[in-house]
C-alpha cells in the first residue's frame, strides 16, 4: 500500500477534488469515532447506519452501471429495490401470504430472477429508442410496481407490509446462532463511559458483514467489467451510440446487458434491506428513493465506481442527518419537504455547475500496468521520428 509507505507522495498524486474527498472522509470518520467513544452514538445504531450506507452504495453501483457506464436513464431504482426486498421477504417471512419460511438464500435467487425478468420487460420496448423513452417508461414502471404491491393484498399483504423476515443467515450452520452465542461484552473506551455489546450488536455486525460482502463483490465485478473490452463498448455507447454501431457493435444487446446487470445489483440491495429491517412495506417503494440514488451517482461522478461508493455514504449522511433537524424546536417546518428541496437543489446545482461530479472517473478507467510502464517522455521526439521515417 502506497498510502502507508509514502503518504506524502500519495497525497501529492491526488487531484484537488480527491484531496478534498479524502480530507472529508478522514474528518467524518474522526467525528464518528469520537461519537462512538463518548457513547453519544450507540454501536448498534452505528452498525445499522453502516449497513444502510452499504445498501445505498449497492444501489448507486447499480445505477452507475446503467447511467454512468452506458448512459441509460433509469428512474425505477425504487422499483427494482422493492422487487428485491419483496422477493426475499415473500419467500422467507413467516407472515408471507404466498410461500414463506424458505431459506433467505432462496429468496435472494427468486428476487434476482424476478428483477432480471422485469428489466428485460422494460428494456425490450425502450432500449431501441432514444434515451429519454427509457426515462419515461421506467418512471411509469416504478409506479406500476408500487401499485401492484399496494393493491394485490392476496400476494403482498398490501399496505400492511410483510413482517417476520428472518435475518439473512437463517438456516446457515454456526452463523445463524452466532449473535445468541456471543457473550455480552462491556467495554470502557474512556473513563466514565461504558458500552455494552449484546446480541443485537452481534446481529448488526453480521449484517454489516453481509453488506460488505455484497458491496465488495459488486465493486470488484464492476471495476473489472468497466475496464474490460465490454466496458469500453459501453463507454463508447454512452458518448456516441452511432459510433459504436458503426464499429459493428450490437448496441441494443450491450445496453440490455448493462441494464439487466444494474437492475440485479439494485435488487441485491433490496434483498439486503429486507433482512436488515426485517419488515418491508409499500412505503419502501417511494419514488424518492430513486432520486436519492441519482444524487449519489451524480455527486460521486457518473461512471465512477468509487464515486458511487462515496455518494452512497453521503446520501445516508443527508438522510439520517436531516432527521436530527427535527429535534431543533426553532425550525418551524417539517423536515420532509426540506429534504426534498435539498435533493432538488443538489441535482440542479450539480448538473449546472459540476456535471462530472466530485470524483469523475480518471485513472480507474486505465489498466494500472499501462500507467506504470508508460515512459515519461517518448524515446525519440516527434520531429526526429518524422525525419527518420519519412522519405522526403
Amino acid at each position, binding site marked *: 500500500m502506497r498510502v502507508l509507505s509514502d503518504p506524502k507522495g500519495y497525497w501529492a498524486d491526488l487531484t484537488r477534488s480527491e484531496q478534498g474527498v479524502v480530507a472529508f472522509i478522514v474528518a467524518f470518520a474522526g467525528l464518528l469515532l469520537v461519537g462512538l467513544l463518548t457513547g453519544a452514538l450507540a454501536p448498534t445504531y452505528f452498525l445499522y447506519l453502516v449497513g444502510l450506507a452499504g445498501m445505498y452504495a449497492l444501489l448507486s453501483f447499480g445505477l452507475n452501471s446503467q447511467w454512468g457506464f452506458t*448512459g441509460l*436513464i433509469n*428512474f425505477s431504482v425504487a422499483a427494482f429495490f422493492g422487487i428485491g426486498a419483496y422477493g426475499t421477504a415473500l419467500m422467507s417471512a413467516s407472515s408471507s401470504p404466498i410461500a414463506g419460511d424458505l431459506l433467505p438464500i432462496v429468496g435472494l435467487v427468486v428476487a434476482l430472477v424476478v428483477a432480471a425478468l422485469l428489466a428485460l420487460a*422494460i428494456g*425490450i*420496448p*425502450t432500449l*431501441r*429508442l*432514444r*434515451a*429519454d*423513452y427509457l*426515462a*419515461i*417508461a421506467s*418512471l*411509469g*414502471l416504478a*409506479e*406500476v410496481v408500487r*401499485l*401492484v404491491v*399496494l*393493491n394485490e393484498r392476496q400476494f403482498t399483504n398490501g399496505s400492511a407490509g410483510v413482517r417476520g423476515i428472518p435475518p439473512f443467515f437463517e438456516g446457515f450452520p454456526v452463523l445463524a446462532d452466532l449473535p445468541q452465542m456471543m457473550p455480552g461484552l462491556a467495554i470502557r473506551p474512556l473513563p466514565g463511559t461504558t458500552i455494552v455489546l449484546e446480541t443485537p450488536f452481534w446481529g448488526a455486525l453480521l449484517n454489516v458483514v453481509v453488506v460488505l460482502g455484497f458491496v465488495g463483490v459488486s465493486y470488484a465485478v464492476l471495476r473489472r467489467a468497466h475496464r474490460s473490452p465490454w466496458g469500453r463498448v459501453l463507454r463508447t455507447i454512452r458518448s456516441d451510440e452511432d459510433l459504436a454501431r458503426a464499429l459493428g457493435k450490437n448496441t441494443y444487446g450491450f445496453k440490455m446487458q448493462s441494464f439487466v446487470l444494474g437492475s440485479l445489483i439494485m435488487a441485491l440491495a433490496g434483498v439486503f434491506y429486507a433482512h436488515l429491517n426485517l419488515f418491508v412495506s409499500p412505503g419502501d417503494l417511494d419514488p424518492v428513493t430513486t*432520486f436519492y440514488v*441519482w444524487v449519489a451517482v*451524480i455527486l460521486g461522478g457518473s461512471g465512477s465506481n468509487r464515486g458511487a461508493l462515496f455518494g452512497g455514504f453521503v446520501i445516508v449522511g443527508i438522510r439520517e442527518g436531516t432527521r436530527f433537524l427535527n429535534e431543533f424546536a426553532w425550525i418551524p*417546518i*417539517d423536515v*420532509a*419537504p*426540506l429534504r*426534498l*428541496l435539498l*435533493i*432538488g*437543489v*443538489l*441535482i*440542479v446545482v450539480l*448538473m*449546472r455547475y459540476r*456535471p462530472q461530479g466530485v470524483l469523475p472517473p480518471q485513472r480507474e478507467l486505465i489498466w494500472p500496468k499501462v500507467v506504470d510502464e508508460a515512459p515519461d517522455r517518448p524515446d525519440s521526439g516527434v520531429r526526429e521520428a518524422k525525419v527518420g521515417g519519412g522519405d522526403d
Partner: protein
Amino acid sequence: MVFDYLASGLVFSSIIVLGSIGLSLIYSIADFANFAHGDTMTVGAYAAFVTFGAVGGLGTSVLGLPIGFFVALVAGIAVAAVVAVVTEKVVYDGMSAGSIELLITSIGIAFVYRAIIQIGFGADFTRYEVQTLRPIEALLPYGVRVTQHDVAIVLSALVLVGSLHTLLQYSDLGRKMRAMADNPDLARVSGIRTDRVKLWTWIIGAGLAGSGGVFLGLYNQLSPRMGFNLLLLIFAAVILGGIGSVYGAMLGGFLIGMINQLTPVLTELGALLPLVPDSFGIPIGIEYANAIAFVIMVAVLLVRPNGIAGEAT
C-alpha cells in the same frame, strides 16, 4: 352508466390535453422531456388558490364559478408562465448540455417546485373556496352526473386549445414555432430569432399547464403531489400522440383521459356488450387506472414508437 364515465372522461381529458400540449411543445422546441411539467401545473393551481383567496368572489358567477375564479385562473396561468421563464433563464439557458442532462436537471427543478409548495402550504389536501354544486338536473335522467364546474372546465379548455390552434396556424409566431420544431438549425439560418421563439414556447406551454393545474384543483383537490402524480398520464398522452406533434398530443391526451375514466367499465363489460354473459368482466380495478396508461404507452412504444400522429424521426 357508460354515459357518465364518458362525461367525466371528457372533463378529465380536457385537463390532460392542457398538460400534454405544453409538454409536447417544450419537448419539440426546447428538445428535452421536461419532468417538471407536472409540478408546473401544481404551481399554477396554488397560484390560483392564493389569488382566489385574495380577490374573493367578485359578485356575479358564470357556470357556478364566481368571476373572481376566472381572475385566479388568469393569475395561475401567468404565475406558471413566469416561473417557467425564470427557470429557463436561470437554469436551463446557461447549460451547455444535451437533452439528457436537461432531463435530469428538470427532475431537480420538479422537486424544488414541489418542496417550496409543500413548505408554504403543507402536505395536506386543500380545495378552492367555491360552492360545491349538485349535478345538473337536466342530465340526470340519462345517468350523467356532471356539475356546471365540469362544463366550465371543458369549455375553458376548448377556448384555450382553440386559441392555440389559431396561434399555431395563422400567426407569425406559430409559423416560426412550427418551423423551429421541424428543424431548429434551418429556422435559425432563415433569420428566425430562435431564442425568442423558445421563450414564447415556455410561456405558452407553462401557461397551458398552469390552467390545467387550476382545473385539476377544481375537478379534484389541491395537493403538492397533484401535478407529479399526473405526469405519467401526460407523458403517456404525449407518447401516444407522437412526441413533437401538438395535434397528436391533443388526440393522445383525449384518449388517455377517456381511457383513464372508463377503467370501471372493464369490470362490468358483460352488462354492456351483447352476446357475452352479464357476469363477464376484466378484473382490473380503478386503482390501476394509471397503470393502464403505462401499459398503453409501452405497447405504443413497441408497435409504433412515433405515436399515432408522429412523423418519422
